[in-house]
């Protein structure tokens, strides 16, 4: 059944990129092409349950230089749903520990005839460095605190599914904006589609520089909550080498946790999202995480569709 559907799927005219490195540089048409393709794939696979062998005979490689279970699994499953073979590579078990450079590692893997490399790394700009040294397509699965394009896409897809047009919608990203690649990708995607974006969190972690781009900056969640159509609760990170930018988990939860009291002040149809993994009781209480406004699990399903779309689009674009 799905091969007939596969034959009917048309490559969008607006997609000409060999790599998906960030959302900041995408045009509205390119962004929409990705989202529409993901939506088509979700339908064609019956909610990402069935195969759609558009990449049969191709190989993708997951180069994860940073720990991740869900994103890695999601990309692996996306590739397999498309009929591709998957190569897994983890930094700690690799030749990197023998002193091999990053570029040499990548070129060695590429020589096994890999068509798409999916890469996660702790340092911003590394997928771009990779793309400059390999011929295959590159998808950024998160480069440090810079961007996580497929996360931004799946978040936006989830909003789009429930609320339709994003134009004029008020979306608040809450938490450690400074260190969040999810926040950055979301900001660019949401702005391009006409949403009103608010970044909210401790003043040590939310820069006023975002106002340069028309993003609203807020430090007080309660003051913005009644206006929000969507809340995306970012995971707060506690590991810091130097002076922590906020004093304690308890203080953070006091000021920013989405709990029943705050939900009572929110819009009736507010969407609660989180990129996960969530810290229950810190960014979000269990009743809210599991409640009727939460679309957290839909995000995960959509992640699969978005990653299938991303892999298919870049794999089919020739190297310029």
């Amino acid at each position, binding site marked *: 059944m799905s091969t007939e559907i596969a034959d009917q799927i048309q490559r969008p005219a607006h997609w000409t990129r060999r790599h998906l490195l960030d959302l900041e540089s995408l045009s509205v048409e390119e962004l929409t092409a990705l989202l529409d393709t993901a939506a088509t794939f979700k339908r064609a696979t019956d909610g990402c349950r069935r195969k759609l062998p558009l990449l049969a005979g191709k190989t993708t490689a997951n180069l994860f230089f940073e720990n991740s279970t869900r994103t890695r699994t999601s990309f692996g499953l996306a590739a397999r749903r498309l009929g591709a073979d998957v190569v897994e590579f983890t930094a700690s078990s690799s030749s990197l520990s023998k002193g091999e450079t990053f570029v040499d590692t990548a070129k060695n893997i590429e020589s096994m005839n890999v068509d798409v490399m999916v890469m996660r790394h702790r340092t*911003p*700009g*590394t997928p771009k*460095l990779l793309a400059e040294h390999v011929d295959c397509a590159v998808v950024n699965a998160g480069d440090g*605190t*810079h961007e996580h394009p497929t996360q931004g896409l799946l978040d936006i897809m989830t909003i789009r599914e429930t609320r339709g047009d994003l134009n004029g919608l008020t979306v608040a990203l809450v938490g450690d904006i*400074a260190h969040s690649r999810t926040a950055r990708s979301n900001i660019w995607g949401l702005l391009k589609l006409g949403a009103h974006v608010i970044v909210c969190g401790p003043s040590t972690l939310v820069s006023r*520089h*975002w106002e340069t781009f028309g993003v609203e900056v807020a430090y007080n969640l309660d003051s913005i909550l009644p206006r929000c159509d969507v809340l995306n609760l970012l995971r707060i990170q506690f590991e810091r080498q130097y002076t922590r930018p906020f004093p304690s988990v308890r203080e953070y939860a006091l000021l920013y946790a989405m709990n029943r009291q705050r939900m009572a002040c929110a819009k009736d149809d507010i969407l609660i999202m989180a990129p996960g993994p969530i810290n229950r009781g810190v960014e979000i209480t269990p009743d809210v995480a599991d409640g009727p406004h939460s679309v957290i699990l839909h995000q995960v399903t959509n992640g699969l569709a978005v990653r299938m779309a991303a892999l298919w689009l870049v794999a089919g674009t020739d190297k310029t």
Partner: protein
Amino acid sequence: MASLRIQNGRVIDPSQQMDRVTNLLVEDGRIAGYDAPANGQDEILDASGKIVTPGLVDIHVELREPGREEDETIRSGTAAALAGGFTSIACTPNTDPPIDTQAGVEFVRQKAARAGNCHVFVLACVSKNRDGKELAEIGSLVESGAVGFTDANRPVHSTELMRRALEYCLMFGSPILNHPEVLELSHDGIMHEGVTSTVLGLPGMPADAEDVMTARDLRLAEYTGGRLHLMNISSGGSVDLIRRYKARGIPATAEICPANFTLTDESLRTFDSNCKVNPPLRSREHVDACIDGLKDDTIDVIASGHAPRASEKKLQELDRAPFGMASLETTLALVITQLIKPGHLDWPQAIAKMTINPANVLKLDKGTLKVGAAADITIIDPDRQWRVAADQFVSASQNSPFVGWDLEGRAVGVLVDGQIKYRLD
């Protein structure tokens, strides 16, 4: 020794307030006179259409030897200096081992003499082993020829040590050259902290990290009377502070490297590791403030800050790539293209910042074409167009964001002690 006449060039020597077309006579390796008539026996070097200046002096160069010969050696670095138009350089002690002993100073001086390229003056460590805890044996180092003291790209973190260093050097008349940066503020920063770093998600090095230490050092210099030279200034806040303290008459000097008056933090959008430098490329308003500082002589010296790094080191993830830019061969051209041609500085002012001013910081008998001075001479073609090409670098490293740039102006002849050491056709 035969005599040499450099003919018809525009001789610009700020140390003598000289700026005119004339003939320069060189005899026995020294400047013998001006406007001398031909006597038929001199060797002639035609400098028509060229600018003739005292040999350029660069007081901030990393030669990397001993210890990091994969980046540069004394021989290759001094050859690169000549190609950049420099006849004298001062090298920093951030080598391995660091230069904090007489043996270290002697090693560099002897290797430089054997290389026979440009003159090399040695800057030795302020602190023992460059670890910022105790004063190095400054007296012995002065005796073996060190002309100034610095821990190079490691700022003198301890306020007390900085004060002691400024006071201790008083008796020798030596300057302390500090790279102002409060490390707790810049810690794991990779680029300037501002709008661009916020967008890119790269950890930032705020301008305050430089300004706070600049303020500290100026205050300590005023209090102790010691000689302070602030290396590689990049921030408008620092320029402002230096201007105010200079107005009070303290003998502090300040230096800038070309990247900081040419590029902004926007260059990091490509994540190019050749743009990873310390101090970082800052935003437009800082660059403009620095150019203003050059114009009103708040910033006295232009130095290359040459920091060569082997290509495999720069071809890494941005946080692993070392800071630094190879700049000996592009500094003069950037001064001409970015400062002189657009009208920010005139030739005499720009040349002063590359000759007599840096020479005075280290009390070197250089940077002048006074009669009797050593014939260290740079001949510049001010209009020569050239494209910066990695495969034409004389330096052992090519880590420069200016590769591929079209620049105007280049040294086409360099004489050291009256001998032609570099010539470009």
